[in-house]
């Protein structure tokens, strides 16, 4: 280094040395700033000094290394110091620069050397445009403009004639033209090229490496080492002792070796014991992910791909409603299959399911549906019952509300909305007689006594008693006797709301014998099994005059109830015992006529009872209701229905028991008659057996009404049904 520097030390490069010195000044710290700059380049130092320097340096380094490794707070302090140094330095450097600049200004760039023939200074010369002068000379006298200004023509002539025109420059300050010399022109050209103005200046001087990798024999600074670099640091000692103490006390743990246990496995289930297994009784294992079907394949069969409609539907559906969580797609080869965009989502959802989804053990019912169907005796074994439609009785023009079969089973009476009562011969379906009663017939009932032939017809507010005279002589005679008996006794009493009127004339010739005038419209009439009593129903919510019981032989009427207990729908006599059944809207009440008290109240569990029938044995009652149900009551069993049958789709209009066979039937607005087998055992412990055996269809539904009434033949397993289509049908 020294050699190089000495070789370069020539007279020319003194300036450069100066520059370098400036640089070093910048770099030095604050303390070193105090030292004289000359010392820096004191290359003539003795070797001894340098050796000393070296020693101190090495000591420094030793200590500093210690400091770094052992102390934290000391580091911080040092850092702070450094920061301060760095802050200070920039302040220093500008000063140095300014100093240099000042020196230069006065040496070379002084404004004294300027051309000062004109003293106006550095101003725009336009300001003197309107004056005859262009400024003032040193003596303060005006400098006048040249007398004759050059005009364009002069300019042109100069341009053409003067060979120095191109190097002539107009000086605005003095108003004179100056011809540049060759050197000046050269200078301008150099500047234009971006070169230094001085020709002799070498731009590419070799750089002097000041701090290089070469070991220098002389120290960079001549500053003596501090005292603190010779003695061990107290602070450090303190810190070291603290750390030692902390390690001794176990506050600082030695650095842990890399945990090798992670990822090292062993036979975890070497000794399985069953004791832990017992803890897992309550555990519900998570269900596995369902396995994929054909539609998830990358190349599914074509039928599994979505059509456009299906795809549109899939896109419209809510995510939770979709059957498939993805759209099946087809790729012609494996390399075209892209990654599944929702893969991470699905995995994540599975994770959520595993730890967030509440689990519950659910028993899945795995039933063969055929096992659910109850085992019933075969209908074949339960014959006889009506199976086919054999006769249709046509003639009525309105809907046939009510039908009744004579106790002999030979005649059928029907009452219709067209105001007529027709009598049919059962076997031939011939209409034997037609009686016009002058109004819609609501109900019709044949006297069950085989010794008389009488028919009760309910029409508006009257009950007519007809003698159709369709029987043998003996029966007719006894009927006549009965009616004439009435005649004798009748005159005694004529009080009360009900009037008995004997008919004469034309009506008598039609067979209408007695007219019983009621205060309100009568809906139903029914006979007692003996044939002497007749009950009529006038449904009315408010009045207690809803039911009348008439005695035909004595022409007497009585109202059995003092209070209204709801809307009466239908009534019926017990076939054997003196009981009277009253069907109200929700329940059936049973009254003992002898004791004159209520014995039972049957809850039908239906909204509105429409019809009722009593088993010929008298221990069972069936009720049809407008809410499609048929309830079977076992009077010995309970007041609740023994069985509810929901066979019909629409309101049940009529129900009937067969007198001899174990059959009952229900007619409904859906146009069907369902015949059921209902065996009643005399053994009290055995419940009745109810088996539906046949669904009979035939009636046409008109005005939303189907079959209105149903009744069995008294002796044969035949059934008659009347419908809203004006026909009566016989099924045998």
């Amino acid at each position, binding site marked *: 280094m020294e050699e190089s520097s000495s070789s370069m030390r020539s007279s020319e490069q003194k300036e450069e040395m100066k520059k370098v010195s400036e640089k070093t000044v910048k770099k030095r710290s604050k303390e070193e700033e105090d030292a004289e700059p000359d010392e820096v380049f004191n290359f003539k130092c003795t070797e001894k000094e340098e050796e000393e320097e070296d020693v101190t340096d090495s000591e420094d380094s030793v200590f500093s290394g210690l400091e770094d490794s052992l102390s934290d707070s000391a580091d911080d302090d040092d850092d702070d110091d450094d920061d301060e140094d760095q802050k200070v330095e920039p302040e220093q450097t500008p000063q140095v620069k300014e100093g240099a600049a000042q020196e230069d200004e006065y040496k070379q760039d002084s404004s004294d050397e300027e051309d000062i023939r004109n003293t106006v200074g550095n101003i725009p010369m336009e300001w003197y445009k309107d004056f005859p002068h262009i400024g003032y000379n040193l003596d303060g006298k005006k400098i006048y403009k040249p007398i004759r200004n050059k005009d364009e023509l002069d300019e042109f002539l100069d341009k053409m004639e003067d060979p120095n025109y191109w190097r002539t420059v107009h000086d605005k300050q003095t108003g004179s033209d100056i011809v540049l010399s060759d050197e000046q022109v050269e200078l301008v050209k150099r500047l234009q090229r971006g070169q230094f103005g001085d020709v002799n200046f070498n731009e590419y001087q070799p750089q002097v490496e000041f701090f290089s990798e070469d070991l220098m024999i002389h120290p960079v600074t001549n500053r003596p080492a501090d005292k603190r670099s010779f003695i061990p640091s107290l602070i450090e000692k303190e810190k070291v002792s603290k750390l030692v103490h902390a390690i001794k006390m176990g506050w*600082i*743990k030695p650095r*842990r070796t890399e945990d090798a246990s*992670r990822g090292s*496995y062993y*036979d*975890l*289930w070497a000794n*399985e*014991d*069953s004791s832990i*297994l017992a803890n897992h009784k*309550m555990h*519900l294992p*998570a269900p*596995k*992910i369902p*396995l*994929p079907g054909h539609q*998830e*394949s990358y*190349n599914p*069969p*074509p*039928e599994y791909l979505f*059509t456009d409609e299906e795809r549109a539907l899939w896109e419209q559906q809510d995510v939770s409603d979709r059957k498939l969580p*993805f759209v*099946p*797609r087809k*790729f*012609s*080869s*494996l*390399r075209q*299959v*892209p990654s*599944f*965009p929702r*893969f*991470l*989502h699905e*995995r*994540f959802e599975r*994770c959520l399911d*595993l*730890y*967030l989804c*509440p*689990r*519950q053990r659910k028993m899945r019912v795995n039933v063969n*549906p055929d096992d*659910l*169907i*109850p085992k*019933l005796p075969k*209908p074949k074994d339960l014959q006889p019952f009506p199976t086919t439609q054999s006769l249709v009785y046509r003639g009525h023009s309105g809907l046939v509300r009510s039908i009744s079969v004579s106790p002999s089973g030979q005649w059928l009476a029907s009452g219709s909305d067209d105001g007529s009562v027709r009598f049919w011969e059962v076997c031939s379906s011939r209409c034997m007689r037609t009686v016009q009663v002058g109004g819609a017939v609501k109900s019709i009932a044949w006297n069950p006594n085989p010794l008389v032939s009488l028919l009760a017809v309910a029409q508006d507010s009257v009950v007519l008693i007809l003698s159709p005279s369709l029987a043998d002589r003996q029966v007719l005679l006894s009927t006549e006797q009965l009616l004439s008996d009435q005649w004798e006794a009748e005159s005694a009493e004529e009080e009360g709301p009900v009037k008995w009127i004997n008919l004469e004339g034309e009506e008598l010739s039609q067979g209408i014998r007695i007219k019983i005038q009621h205060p309100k419209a009568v809906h139903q009439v029914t006979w007692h099994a003996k044939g002497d009593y007749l009950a009529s129903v006038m449904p009315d919510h408010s009045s207690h005059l809803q039911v009348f019981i008439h005695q035909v032989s004595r022409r007497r009427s009585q109202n059995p109830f003092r209070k209204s207990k709801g809307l009466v729908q239908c009534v019926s006599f017990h076939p054997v015992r003196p009981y009277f059944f009253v069907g109200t809207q929700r329940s059936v009440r049973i009254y003992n006529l002898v004791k004159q008290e209520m014995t039972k109240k049957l809850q039908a569990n239906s909204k509105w009872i429409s019809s009722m029938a009593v088993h010929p044995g008298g221990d069972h009652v069936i009720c049809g209701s407008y809410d499609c149900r048929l309830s079977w009551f076992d009077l010995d069993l309970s007041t609740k229905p023994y069985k509810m*049958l*929901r066979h019909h789709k629409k309101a049940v209009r009529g129900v009937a028991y067969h007198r001899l066979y174990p059959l009952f039937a229900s007619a409904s607005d859906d146009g069907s008659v369902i015949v059921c087998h209902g065996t009643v055992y005399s053994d009290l412990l055995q419940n009745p057996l109810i*088996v539906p055996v046949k*669904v009979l269809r035939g009636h046409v539904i008109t005005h939303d009404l189907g079959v209105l009434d149903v009744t069995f033949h008294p002796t044969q397993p035949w059934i008659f049904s009347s419908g809203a289509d004006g026909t009566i049908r016989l099924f045998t």
Partner: protein
Amino acid sequence: MGGTLKKKYESGSVTNYITRNKARKKLQLSLPDFRRLCILKGIYPREPKNKKKVNKGSTAPRTFYLLKDIRFLLHEPIVRKFREYKIFVRKLKRAYGRTEYSTVGRLKDNKPAYKLDHIVKERYPSFIDALRDIDDALCMCFLFSTFARTGKCHVQTIQLCRRLTVEWMNYVIASRALRKVFISIKGIYYQAEVMGQIITWLVPYQFSHDHPTDVDYRVMATFTELYTTLLGFVNFRLYHSLNLVYPPKLDVKSESGLNEEDVDDYAMSSESYLEKLSALSTTLAQVVSSTEDEEAELDKFPVEEEDVAKLEAREEEQKQQEIEKKLFEGLKIFLNREVPRESLAFLIRCFGGQVSWDRSVCIGSTYNVTDETITHQIVDRPNIDKQYINRYYVQPQWLYDCVNAKILLPVEDYFLGVTLPPHLSPFVEEKDGDYVPPEKLKIMALQRGEKPVRAQEEEEEEEEEDDSEEEEEEEEDEDEDKVEEKSLKKMEEQRSQGNSLPVKVTAGKVKVDNLERLEQEEKAEEKRLAIMMMKKREKYLYDKIMFGKKRKIREANKLTAKRKAHDDAEKSSKKKTRK
């Protein structure tokens, strides 16, 4: 009314349950920590039988845990570790805040760590339990092993997952346990039978994931933590059951062979060892080297006559399975670079085939394309320049379909550039009444040993006949080309003749009462009547079952109709193209 009044909701089922918030407070854990604990310990909410009773009369939606479960968590040593970790994080934050980096370093060195061994043992008391639950673990590990090594989770986790999955695949190869494979649009499903347990897992395709923002990776990472531990122990046990060295080692002989080849190309390091393992091309080292394959023969017990048939059937099954395991034995397969190497190599090795690939694709290739003894080359591109005569060029689906069909399917359908037959899911087991796609029927026929070619030929013949007729017609048309209108008219006439039936009056037939039909009708009526007599509850159930059945039938019919429509359309388009 003697005694004190009983308060509501103080006894009964309400005492067995605890809400999540209460449980959290009882354990003194933050919600994330509680979640982690639940995941690790396998505690999940329960749905009480009567929610209103448990919820103290309110119907607000709440999650309930079993109180027993929560009590069980109280004594978990890991809870302490969680707390330690919390303190550690606090200290670390403080050190960072004070910029005390030496403290940070010291703290980091002593980061509290926990092991999950005891939890695995506790959750899966027997090895079979663990195997039964390994599906999810496998899926998760395979997913994590495909993650890029940046961002989302620790690199160590990804590496561990990769290691474990490779070990698992090697085990499946060594035990030949693979049963079914299915290429779906999500990934590739594999099903293996390990120790009598059916295990299914899904491997995503080898693409980088675009990580969604609505997925909580912390939850997934916690699961992975548990699953890696579980899978590691399971692998250990499985390897030992096969007498293999557990951290798996390659067989020495083959390894030496490999070394000679590959030393020049690859630097040997621990990572490259894993890579070699994952090449799946070499057998693993055994603890006790046994040269002969020990075929476990069923011991013969003196049995009663009834069991003889059963035993025979079992033996037959065993034999069949042995044959199926050697499906690809004797095949020498080469994989082109465009096919999924890992999946196919796994598959082929599982069924005893030899497999190799280009040296530049992956480490561990055993032979070259130029090998003359190669029987099949798996190709997934439309055509290939240089073809060898003595080998089949098939598409990768052939291998998958063969595995599922358990026989070597005819290669003709899978040749280069041929439109592939549909790939069916092997997991669907059709019951009678379900829709069975015709391809499945074909494969079933092949399995039975029938040759399905005949039907096709017949079809083709029919088609040819049709074609010839048409051609004749066309010829005629050509003859009368000049008079186009006439020919058109003629054709119309022909058509009309063909279509409209000649009006005929046939003699009326006497309706014979079909006895069978009558009987059937009677039975149907009987059933209908019996259904009417059902109880309400049973009727409801019955209706539901019948509804489900009907829906199933409807769906099957729909699929059949769709297929038919598709086939018809295809046929007509074929005809058009032929014309």
